């Protein structure tokens, strides 16, 4: 692993200057390394963080990837990690013109990491440095405790997708306004509705009074509003504080909860486990925004490498080369999803829409397709708007807000279905739908969405931990439940239950085919039943609590 040579570094500096002029923001110092294929293979299971703690699963991954590489050698052009200073890795065989394009791509990634609010909690420290000290801690513990360190890592990683990312985010976003946020929500959502049970008209009156107060006094409006509230309800403040006390424990995610409340982990000889758990939790939190902004991040980087490189004089003589490489990266596939291509097109589309002032009420009200096409308020704020989007959005809001039927029509997008043709014994790929809702739903299904699992404190009694999975029409992978629960049981030091929902299939009836006719199959009907898994002494049991 070597730093790029001075000649290439000069190219990078040239790119930085132009990118900055275009409005991208990033710190002055960046580190670029040339890495071998071997380095890349060994780094990829660690999320490209060279200093991440050692774990045997990573080793298995490396061996697997090496095997794969032998059969299907492919190398990424670049990889950037969200560190301070930002580090990026390259293959060494890129010609200068290609480096220009890749560097623009990388700079846009860095800009995204350092500007998008979903990365807020990673802004104030260097993750590689943090990871290195964690790695040392883990290595030191491993020297003392041996393989039990790996078990703790494994069991914690089993629940590291349940980390409270959004909670963490809202805390780093509004560290001091917690109380302030809560009191307003508490007043309108809880106090008026559940405590006082005011009528709808009174409720609306209060909202109007609040808005008026804000309108009249600006920043001081809220304070003024609550002065009257406190006069009217002297008990309000005391109730609010009580509410905070009752509610705040729920702000712990499962790893934190185990770490805080498990009697097993509080024992002197087991305390070291909490350190390991926190390392795993922090690592998971660090990677969360990257999984949730894949389409945006890649789209943003592709948008900028294309935009900036086409204007760059260094493209001269390599226009065709660029077109080929760029098409490989950003072409829309006939079947399949390409997040680079989709994200980039969406940014272009949004920019165009904003330039014409189409994100406005006036435009939304127009029904006629012709008029919609011709609409142009000459806003010219396209660039400004996409910068704003890259700052405040993640993939879900990005897709949900901006993909519309026009976008789908322009880009000729559709949902591909795959079905079995039993006569020919082939899988058929077909155009399933070109409708907005179907396309959007297909995208949502591809987004990262960990299950929502909460700790039910009411039902957790006598050292028995009770977890509840909030069902969102998708069951959990049943095969993984026992081992994951065994891990939680170990860390909790007592029996663990998980309430979840499972599918029950009606038996498929097959009628033998009559000559000349194809076999008829009834589609199985799915019914849902609520079940409770319990893991006790490493033995799993299941009971149904709600049959369909």
């Amino acid at each position, binding site marked *: 692993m070597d730093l790029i040579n001075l000649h290439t570094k000069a190219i990078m500096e040239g790119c930085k200057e132009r990118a900055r002029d275009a409005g991208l923001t990033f710190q002055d110092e960046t580190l670029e390394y040339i890495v071998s294929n071997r380095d890349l293979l060994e780094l990829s299971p660690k999320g490209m963080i060279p200093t991440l703690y050692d774990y*045997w699963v990573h*080793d*298995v*991954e490396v*061996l*697997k990837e090496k095997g*794969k590489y032998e*059969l*299907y050698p492919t190398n990424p052009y670049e990889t950037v990690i969200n560190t301070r200073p930002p580090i990026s890795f390259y293959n060494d065989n890129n010609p200068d013109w290609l480096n220009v394009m890749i560097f623009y791509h990388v700079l846009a990634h860095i800009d995204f990491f350092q500007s998008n609010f979903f990365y807020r909690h990673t802004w104030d420290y260097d993750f590689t440095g943090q990871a290195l000290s964690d790695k040392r801690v883990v*290595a030191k513990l*491993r*020297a003392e405790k041996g*393989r039990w360190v790996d*078990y703790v890592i*494994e069991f914690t*990683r*089993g*629940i*590291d*997708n349940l980390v409270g990312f959004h909670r963490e985010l809202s805390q780093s976003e509004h560290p001091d306004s917690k109380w302030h946020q809560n009191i307003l929500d508490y007043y309108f959502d809880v106090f008026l509705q559940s405590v006082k049970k005011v009528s709808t008209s009174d409720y609306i009156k209060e909202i109007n009074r609040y808005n008026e107060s804000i309108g009249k006094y600006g920043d001081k409006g809220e304070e003024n509003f609550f002065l009257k509230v406190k006069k009217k309800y002297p008990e309000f403040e005391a109730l609010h504080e009580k509410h905070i006390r009752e509610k705040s424990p729920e702000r712990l995610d499962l790893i934190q909860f185990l770490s805080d409340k498990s009697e097993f982990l509080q024992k002197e000889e087991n305390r070291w486990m909490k350190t390991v758990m926190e390392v795993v939790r922090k690592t998971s939190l660090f990677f969360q925004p990257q999984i949730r902004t894949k389409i945006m991040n890649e789209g943003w980087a592709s948008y900028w490498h294309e935009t900036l490189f086409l204007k760059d004089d260094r493209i001269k003589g390599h226009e065709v080369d660029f077109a080929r490489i760029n098409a490989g990266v950003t072409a*829309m*596939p*006939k*079947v*399949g*999803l390409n997040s680079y291509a989709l994200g980039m097109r969406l940014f272009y589309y949004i920019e165009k829409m904003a330039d014409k002032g189409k994100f406005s009420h006036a435009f939304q009200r127009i029904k006629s397709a012709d008029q919609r096409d011709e609409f142009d308020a000459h806003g010219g704020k396209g660039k400004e708007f996409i910068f704003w989007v890259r700052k405040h959005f993640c993939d879900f809001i990005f897709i949900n807000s901006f993909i519309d039927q026009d976008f789908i029509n322009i880009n*000729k997008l*559709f949902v*591909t*279905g*795959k*079905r*079995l043709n039993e006569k020919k*014994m*082939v*899988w*058929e*790929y*077909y*155009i*399933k739908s*070109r409708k907005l809702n179907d*396309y959007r739903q*297909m*995208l949502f299904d591809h987004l990262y969405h*960990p*299950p929502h699992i909460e700790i039910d404190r009411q039902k957790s009694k006598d050292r028995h931990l009770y977890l509840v999975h909030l069902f969102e029409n*998708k*069951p*959990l*992978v*049943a*095969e*993984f*439940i026992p*081992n*994951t629960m*065994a891990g939680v049981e170990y860390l909790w030091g007592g029996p663990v239950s998980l309430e979840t929902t499972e*599918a029950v299939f009606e038996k498929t009836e097959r009628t033998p085919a009559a000559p000349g006719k194809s076999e008829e199959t009834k589609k*199985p009907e799915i019914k849902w039943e609520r079940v409770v898994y319990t893991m006790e002494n490493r033995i799993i049991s299941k009971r149904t609590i709600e049959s369909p």
Partner: protein
Amino acid sequence: MEPPRYSYTVGIRSLEELLERDRQREKDGFNRKIRIGRLMKPGRSAKDKVIVIPTTVEEKFLHDTSVPSPSEEGSSGGSGDGEEGEILGEEPVRGTGPGAGPGEGESGPHEIESSAYDLGKILTEKFELPNLKDKGKKRSLTRYTYDLTDRHRGSGQVLDKKATLRKILKTNIHLGNIPDLDHIDPAEFLISPDDMIYRVLSPEKDFESQAMVFFLRDYSGSMEGKSTDLVVTQHVLIYSWLLYQYARQVESRFILHDTEAKEVGDFYTYYNSKVAGGTKVVSAYRLVNEIVKTENLAKDYNIYVFHGTDGDDWDTGGAEALPALKTIMMYANRIGITVAQHGSARNQRTEVEKYLAKSRFLTEKPNLIRLDVMEEDAVEGRLIEGIKKLIGP
């Protein structure tokens, strides 16, 4: 400053270490986590490659996206022209895609050998397959090649001049025939016929393969698809395991049959050859007998015969197949027959099973012949079970 007593950088662990760790898990009361998989890439013109890789899954609470629509596989994106409902393309269900099994191609022998060896090693360790025993064959496992390496006094094929001269000198010194060691006159030597040293032909030990394995596969029309996959996958595993077990000293012969049998040169052709016509099991058995007889293999080898079929045979009742099989049983150490049953024939015994049962070979000679019947959609774990059954003690 004291140097740290532990290392910050722990290198990537080898597969052996990882498997050792996996075994330890069991002792600690947790399930094993590492699976051994194979990756195969069909080559464009010639070389298919098989690579052994370990895999593991990090188990978590995750959404199962496959459940709501079992009849229709997951949807994806797409772009381009076309009406809704229009078919974009087709893919055979029993594909010949990467990793799906037989396709066309030829050998890349070194790669498969080395990789198969690794796979066998892992299989032996991971699945604790029983080690093969030498069954009754107490014959020397070495053969001789002859070379002029031994020395013989007095007579022989080629005179060893240097040794002879040395011997003559020695004799003459004993006789006191050499007064001045600094001035030796060879003309004065007394030469006894016994001093002449010759090289003679001598048997040299030549380590030969200890085992000869015949792989027989039905590649008739009825075998297309999963049955073939299953049989060749199982044979890959057995082949790998034997390669390891005999420290590469295993020779294999590959025979494909439909109504007629033919021998093919290497595992790749065996693995990849495509389906042909009807089925006559006896053709393959006869070919094995013929090979063993003409090459006189029974004398020097442990012979194993593994036969994979879907159980179909035109030779109803085994009138021809059974006598041929009986002949094999006279010299073979173990015969393993795998029947990959078609889904449609579940709970019905296949022709091969029927006549084997009738012959009572299986019950009378359980050490010599084994049968494993599985359904054609068996998983890898089932295959391993099958191998254990076929080659177990």
